């Protein structure tokens, strides 16, 4: 198994930490993992993205030009990464604020209105976990149990009481994601 993922959005949407949680989950299932952020000026207010690779084999290049799965959380990220999903791959988008929508027909496209849900239910802090839940519904690359183990490992003890809330957010995301036909 090898999954090459790009997660992209505005700085502050939790893009980098979502990637980190995925990477830790991979670590928990004994996989090879790499996590590389865009650490340039774009993370200061503009778009941020992170490339995460989970693999049973050794990972060669941590820097990629095409991806199995792209998760795009804003319009500029959709424009940048839609064309870079491998044929047959997966594109997940949060439709909040989108004016133009994905057009490709050779990939699987899913919509998850996590921002809208999070704002309506006062859940903005777990918005990225809702999206992660959506990803795991359509691409079950890591088990939820390993995500929770990863959270435990990556969060300081004083934040461990937040883990049940994050687990709930994953379940919400799994219910929320819809395939775009």
């Amino acid at each position: 198994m090898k999954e090459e993922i790009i997660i992209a959005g505005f700085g502050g949407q939790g893009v980098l930490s979502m990637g980190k949680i995925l990477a830790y989950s991979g670590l928990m299932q004994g996989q090879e993992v790499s996590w590389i952020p865009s650490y340039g000026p774009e993370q200061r207010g503009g778009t941020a993205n992170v490339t995460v690779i989970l693999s049973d084999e050794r990972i060669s290049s941590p820097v990629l030009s095409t991806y199995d799965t792209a998760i795009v959380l804003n319009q500029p990220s959709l424009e940048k990464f839609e064309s870079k999903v491998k044929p047959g791959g997966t594109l997940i988008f949060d439709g909040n604020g989108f004016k133009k929508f994905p057009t490709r027909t050779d990939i699987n496209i899913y919509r998850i209105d996590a921002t809208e849900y999070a704002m309506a239910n006062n859940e903005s802090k777990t918005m990225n976990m809702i999206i992660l839940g959506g990803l795991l519904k359509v691409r079950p690359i890591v088990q939820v149990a390993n995500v929770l183990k990863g959270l435990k490992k990556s969060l300081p003890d004083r934040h461990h009481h937040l883990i049940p809330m994050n687990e709930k957010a994953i379940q919400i995301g799994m219910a929320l994601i819809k395939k775009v036909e």
Partner: protein
Amino acid sequence: MNNKKKDTEEVRLMKGNEAIAHAAIRCGCDGYFGYPITPQSEIMETLMELEPWNTTGMVVLQAESETASINMVYGGAGCGKKSMTSSSSPGVSLMQEGISYLAGAELPAVIVNVMRGGPGLGTIQPSQADYFQTVKGGGHGDYKMITLAPASVQEMADHTVMAFDLAFKYLTPVMILADGVIGQMMEKVVLPPFQPRLTEEEIKIKCPWATLGKPANRKPNYIYSLQLEAEEMEDLNLRLQSRYRTIEKNEVLFEEFDCEDAEYLIVAFGTSARVCQKAVEMARAQGIKAGLLRPITLFPFPTEQISHYANQTKGMLTVEMSAGQMVEDVRLAVNGRVPVEFYGRMGGIVPSPDDVFEALKKLIVK
């Protein structure tokens, strides 16, 4: 590029920069002196967070500048202490005088350069354009620096330990030449075991040249790089050159992928080597016999091994995040026997595996 299956108990996930900080404490480093600059600030940040002065007694100090940092390293090294600094390209330029002095005074030290795009203040994105500065001598005089080029987070940790060992073995500054990708990337790492810091008594035995206070029964130790007599200065140079020849003989490190039957050889180090490994996988999937040779030490350079592959291959491609620097050393090794082409990106752009594969196909058409 570590393929060993690790015991999951001790495997950690961290950035390359963080791995250097952890490894420094664990290998008994006595002092770190630095000044923050992206993309390597996490080295000092992690050290400050870990507070090793409370555990091993290691000193961590933010100096007023890079120039001050390298001279603090000189002072620490003169006392036989395991001393290090880290910076990124513009900061390392400021350190060149100090590095030349360390080499001239025959002092052990570790310098980390997490390279970013230049010239000038440049960009904060990854680059490999300090190859010439590092291996051809960025400072003045006939000196060389052992240069390690990590390509994974695991190697960031392992090379920190190795760099100190080599520095004390040969009494020379050692450079860890990484780049922004390796510094900022998180991967799995198994940290090296803890080694206690040496006591002053142990240092006096291991480093009889160290300036730790003069006992009554020996002459004073002097540490300097000034020799007003030309004959004495030439003696120092001869001693250094002979040491560099020994280093060339004993310390070359490289890694090979799919080289046995390779008709086309890619030569690349650090992040570029990771990208090229994927390009080799793509080529092999299309039946092209490509291989990758990754120098781990840039000085000493794997000249002999590259020369050996000139006998079996039809052409070579050097890939760097620069305008083409290491390619000159590859061409010297090959000495015109096969064409050596170059592909590179500059100013903070990382080439993609597709870009490298295209460059490889162009080489083959030729």
